[in-house]
C-alpha cells in the first residue's frame, strides 16, 4: 500500500506544482498587463486599437472640458514635438481635415494639458460629468505657495494636478497659477498617504517631479487629428522653456527662523535701500531679458534670497551672475540707455570680466561673468589700484527659477553649495564688514594684470 501511496502522492504533487507554475505565469502576465498596458496589448497585437483609444480618450476629455467652458491648452511634450515639425502646415490650415491620426495616436501613457487657475471656478460639476463619462479621476492638492511666505496664514489647499483615467489612457491636467512677478507656476505632484500609488505610472509624467515656472504663453487654436485644441503659439520655444522650468520656492520657514535670531532691520534707511535695490533689480532684469542674456542672483543678493527671502539691507549693492558665453557687447549700451551708466569695467571677455553700473543714490549693480571649467566654475575680481587679480571658485551648478521681490529670476539650483562656496559654512550669521578680496572662502590669488593691459582691463568712470 505504501508504494501506491508514494506514487499517487508523487503524481499529485507533480500535478499541483504544474498548476502552481501555471498560476504563477498567469499572475506574472496579469501583473504585467496591469503595470504596462501598452506592452501587454502589443503582445496581443492590438496596436491600432490602442492608438485610437488614445485619440478617443483625448476627444472625450476635450468634450468634457468644453461642455464646462474650461479653457485648457495642450502642453504634452511628445505631441507638441510632433506638432512642431508640421507647425507651418498646421498654422496655415487650421481647419483642414487630417487624413491620418498623426499626433494624438502616438504611443504614450498620458496626454498633458494645462489649465489656468483663474479661468476656472473649480466647480464640482465637472467631476460628476467626468464620472458619468467613465473617467476615473484623481486630484492632487497642496499648500498654496503664494501664502507660504506669510507668517501663520493657513489658506485652503489648492489643486495642483488632476489626472483623468479612461481605459488604458490618462489625461494629466496641470493647474497653473499666476504669481507675483508676472509668471505662471505649477506645483510639484506629491501623493498623500491614502492615495492610490498605482492609479497611473506617476514616474512617467512629464510634469510634477518639480514645481515649474513659465512665461504666460500666447495660445493658438488649431485643429489636429480632427480635434480642436489650443496649443502654445510657438511649441518649440515652449518645449525649450520646459527643459529649464524647474522652480525653487524661497525657504520661508528658514527665513522666519533667521529673523527670529536676527530681527529684521526696519529702519527707514533699510526700507529705502530695499525699495531702491528692488527697483534696480527690476530694471536690470528687464534690460537683460530684453537682450536675451540669462542671468542669476549672485553673491550678496543670492545670499539674501537664500537666507532671508529678501534684500539684505546692509549689502549696498545688487549682484548678478552671467555666463561668459552669454556675454553680449550690447550690455553696456543697453544699461546706459536704461539710465544706468557704467561705473567700472574690470577684466576682459577672455578673462575675469566684471561690470558695475551706477544705480540711483549709490546703489550699485555688479555683473560678474562666470567661466566654466571641466570641474568648476569661476569668476574674477580685480583690485583697481594694484592690478591684482582674484579668482572665486564655485562647484558646477545649473539654474533654477525662483521668485524674488516680485520678480521671476534665476538662482543656482544648488544654492547651498553656491552660497557656502562664497560665504563659508557660517553664511547663516550676518556679517556687516565684508572684504571682497579676503572674506570669501573661495577666493584665490590669481596674479597681476600686465601693466600694459591696465588701460583696457581696469576702466573706472
Amino acid at each position: 500500500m505504501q508504494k501506491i501511496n508514494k506514487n499517487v502522492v508523487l503524481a499529485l504533487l507533480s500535478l499541483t506544482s504544474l498548476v502552481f507554475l501555471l498560476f504563477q505565469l498567469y499572475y506574472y502576465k496579469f501583473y504585467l498587463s496591469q503595470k504596462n498596458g501598452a506592452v501587454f496589448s502589443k503582445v496581443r497585437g492590438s496596436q491600432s486599437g490602442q492608438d485610437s483609444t488614445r485619440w478617443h480618450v483625448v476627444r472625450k476629455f476635450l468634450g468634457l472640458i468644453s461642455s464646462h467652458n474650461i479653457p485648457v491648452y495642450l502642453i504634452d511634450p511628445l505631441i507638441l514635438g510632433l506638432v512642431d515639425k508640421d507647425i507651418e502646415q498646421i498654422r496655415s490650415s487650421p481647419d483642414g481635415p487630417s487624413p491620418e491620426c498623426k499626433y494624438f495616436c502616438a504611443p504614450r501613457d498620458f496626454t498633458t494639458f494645462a489649465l489656468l487657475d483663474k479661468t476656472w471656478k473649480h466647480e464640482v460639476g465637472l467631476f460628476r460629468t467626468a464620472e458619468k463619462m467613465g473617467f476615473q479621476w484623481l486630484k492632487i492638492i497642496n499648500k498654496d505657495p503664494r501664502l507660504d511666505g506669510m507668517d501663520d496664514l493657513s489658506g485652503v489647499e489648492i489643486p495642483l494636478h488632476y489626472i483623468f483615467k479612461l481605459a488604458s489612457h490618462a489625461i494629466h491636467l496641470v493647474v497653473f497659477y499666476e504669481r507675483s512677478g508676472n509668471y505662471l507656476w505649477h506645483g510639484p505632484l506629491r501623493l498623500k498617504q491614502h492615495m492610490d500609488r498605482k492609479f497611473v505610472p506617476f514616474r512617467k509624467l512629464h510634469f510634477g517631479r518639480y514645481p515649474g515656472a513659465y512665461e504666460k504663453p500666447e495660445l493658438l487654436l488649431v485643429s489636429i487629428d480632427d480635434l480642436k485644441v489650443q496649443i502654445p503659439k510657438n511649441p518649440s520655444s515652449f518645449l525649450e522653456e520646459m527643459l529649464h522650468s524647474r522652480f525653487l520656492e524661497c525657504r520661508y520657514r528658514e527665513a522666519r527662523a533667521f529673523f527670529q535670531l536676527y530681527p529684521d532691520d526696519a529702519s527707514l534707511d533699510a526700507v529705502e535701500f530695499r525699495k531702491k535695490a528692488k527697483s534696480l533689480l527690476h530694471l536690470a532684469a528687464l534690460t537683460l531679458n530684453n537682450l536675451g542674456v540669462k542671468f542669476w542672483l549672485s553673491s550678496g543678493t543670492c545670499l539674501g534670497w537664500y537666507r532671508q527671502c529678501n534684500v539684505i539691507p546692509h549689502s549696498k549693492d545688487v549682484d548678478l551672475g552671467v555666463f561668459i558665453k552669454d556675454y553680449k557687447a550690447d550690455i553696456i549700451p543697453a544699461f546706459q540707455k536704461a539710465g544706468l551708466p557704467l561705473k567700472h569695467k574690470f577684466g576682459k571677455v577672455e578673462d575675469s570680466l566684471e561690470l558695475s553700473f551706477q544705480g540711483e543714490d549709490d546703489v550699485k549693480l555688479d555683473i560678474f561673468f562666470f567661466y566654466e571649467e571641466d570641474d568648476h566654475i569661476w569668476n574674477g575680481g580685480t583690485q583697481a589700484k594694484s592690478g591684482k587679480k582674484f579668482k572665486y571658485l564655485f562647484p558646477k551648478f545649473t539654474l533654477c527659477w525662483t521668485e524674488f521681490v516680485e520678480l521671476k529670476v534665476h538662482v543656482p539650483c544648488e544654492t547651498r553649495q553656491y552660497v557656502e562656496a562664497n560665504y563659508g559654512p557660517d553664511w547663516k550669521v550676518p556679517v556687516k564688514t565684508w572684504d571682497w578680496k579676503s572674506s570669501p572662502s573661495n577666493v584665490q590669488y590669481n596674479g597681476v594684470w600686465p601693466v600694459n593691459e591696465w588701460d583696457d582691463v581696469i576702466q573706472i568712470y
Partner: protein
Amino acid sequence: MDEWKPNPAIKPHKKRSWYLAWKYKLMNQRALRKLCQTGAVLFLLVTVIVNIKLILDTRRAAYEEEEESAQDYDDEMLNVEVPRHPVSNKKVLDVEVYSSRSKVYVAVDGTTVLEDEAREQGRGIHVIVLNQATGHVMAKRVFDTYSPHEDEAMVLFLNMVARGRILIFTIKDEGSFHLKDTAKNVLKSLGSQVAPFLSWRDMWTFVGKKGGEVYGEKHAKSPALSTWGDPVLLKTEVHLTSVEDAECRWPDTELNRRRKRFCSKVEGYGSVCSCKDPTPIEFNPDPLKDNKVFDVPVAVIAGNRPNYLYRMLRSLLSAQGVNPQMITVFIDGYYEEPMDVVELFGLSGIQHTPISIKNARVSQHYKASLTATFNLFPDAKFAVVLEEDLDISVDFFSFLSQSIHLLEEDESLYCVSAWNDQGYEHTAEDPSLLYRVETMPGLGWVLRKGLYKDELEPKWPTPEKLWDWDMWMRMPEQRKGRECIIPDISRSYHFGIVGLNMNGYFHEAYFKKHKFNTVPNVQLKNVESLRKDAYEAEIHRLLGEAEVLDHSKNPCEDSFVPDTEGRVYVMFIRMEQEADFTTWTQLAKCLHIWDLDVRGNHKGLWRLFRKKNHFLVVGVPASPYSSKKPSSVTPIYIEPPAKEEGAVAVPAVAAAEQT
C-alpha cells in the same frame, strides 16, 4: 500496479527461470520506478524553486515599481496619521448642567462644552444648542437678561433654532431682571415649568428638545433679595435620533450640499436652514455693464463674529457686479464658525494665527490680509477692503467702477471709500455726488497696490505697537497730503454693535442714523471734476453761487437754514489755523454728526446737506476759501463747554493747543 506485487501463491522454486526473468524484470522495473520517482521529486523540487523565485521576483518587481513610481512623489508629511474619530453608535448622551452665582458649566458625555467662572462677565442665561443626531454643539450664546433688550435677542435666537434641536439653558449670577413675559412664554413653550416664575437671583437649568420632550429641569429659588439661590446641578440623559431624521430633505444639488454641511454644524442662522423654502445662498445679482472692478480682489477682514459675517456676505454677494471668485475672507484666528459661513457661500477663506493683542492684533491681521491678497492676485492693481460688520450697498461695485480710474490716474488720491463719516440721515442727500476729503474713512475702501507695496507694507506698525491701523494710515507721514474720494450717501453701513472699539451706546450715537444708499445703478455725476485741479474749480464755482447764511442766528438751530430745497448755502466759522477745529467740533456736536475727531474736511471746508440744501462750512481764515467771505460777515465762534472738574489732562492739552 497490483500485478507488480509478489504473489505469495507462486512457488518460486518451480518455474525458476520464469521467476528469475520476472524478478529481473521486476528489479528492472523497480529501477525504472526509482528513476521515475527520483525524476518526479527532482521535477517537484525544480518547480518549487522556480515558483519561489517567481514569487520573489514578481513581489520585488511590484514593490520596486511601487517604490519607484511614488518615491519622488511622496508627500514629505506622509507619516501624519489622519486621526479617525471612532464612529460612536451611542444613542444616549449624558448631560450635566450646573448653574450658580459665579460659575456655570455644561458637560456632554463627560466633555465640558461650556465653562464660565470668570468674574464680572457671562452674567445671564447661557444657551447651548446640540445636534439631536450627533450631539455636537451647534451654537453657544449668552444673553444678559439682567440688562434690557437682551431677552428680545434671546427670543429671536430661540425662534431661529430648528425644531428637534436639543437646547440647554443655565443661569449665571442673574438672569431674570429684564426677562419679559414674551421670553418667559417662549421658554414655557419649550416645556419649562419654572420659567414663568423665574425671579431675582434664582438658579435654573433646563434641558429640552425644541418642539419635543423635556429631559430635565432644576431650579433653586433665591431666599432673599440680597442672596442667590443655591447652586443647582442637573444630570440627565438625552436620546439621540438618527441622522436622517435630523436633516432636511432638500433636493440634492451642489448648493444644497453646502447648505446641509452648514446646517448640520451650526445653529442660529434662521431661514437658511429651514427645511421648507430655505433662503437662497446664491444670489446672481445683475452684472454691471463695463464693470471696471470685476477683476479687483475683495478682502473681507473678519474676526469671530460669524453672524455678522453671514449678514455681510449676504449683502456683498447681492451687490450688482460682484465677482465671488475675487472674494477672500481673512479670519483672525482659527475659529470654525466663521469658516463654516464662508464655505456656505462657496467663497474662499484664510485663517490667520493671531499676532499680538487688541489694536495691534487687528493691525497685524490687516497687514497679513492685504499682503496675502496681493500675493493671491498678482495682477491686481487695487484691492477692495471690507470688514465683517458692514452692509454693502446694491450699487457698491457700480460706485467703484465709476470712480476707480481716478485712483489710478490722480496721484494726489489716497483711496476711494464707500463711507462718508458725515453722511447721516439728516446730512446726506445726493447719491450721485462725490467729495474729496483729507481723512481716510475706511469702512469699505479701495487700496492701490503701489501705495501698499511701496509705502505702507514696508513700514507697517510692528506687532508691539498698539496702534490702530486706520489711525496710523491717517497720520501725515503716511497720508502725505493725499485725499480720499467719498460719496455723499455711503455705500456701506456699519451695523456692528460688538467690537474692539464698539458698544451699543456708541453705535446708537454715531452709526445707527447713518444714511445708506439703496438705489441701484446710480449714475455718478461729474466724476472728472474730482481730479485735483478740477475739484478746486468746482469748489470755487459752488462758493460763487452759494448764498451766505445769516450769521447772526444760531447755527445749531434748524431755522439757521431757510426752508428751501436744492439751494447752496455757505457759512463761515472761526478757524485760526489749519489744526484749529474748536468751532467745527462744537458745530458737529450740535448737528449730531461725527464730532469725536475731525472728519470729512477738505482745506478747511466741509460739505453736507441740511434740509435738502447743500450746506458748506468754511473755516476762516485758515481755509484758502476764506476769500469768498464777504467782509461784512463775522465768522461764527462757538465756545466749547467748560471742562468738567477732573477732566482728563490730555484732551485739555489738545484743546489748548488748538485754540
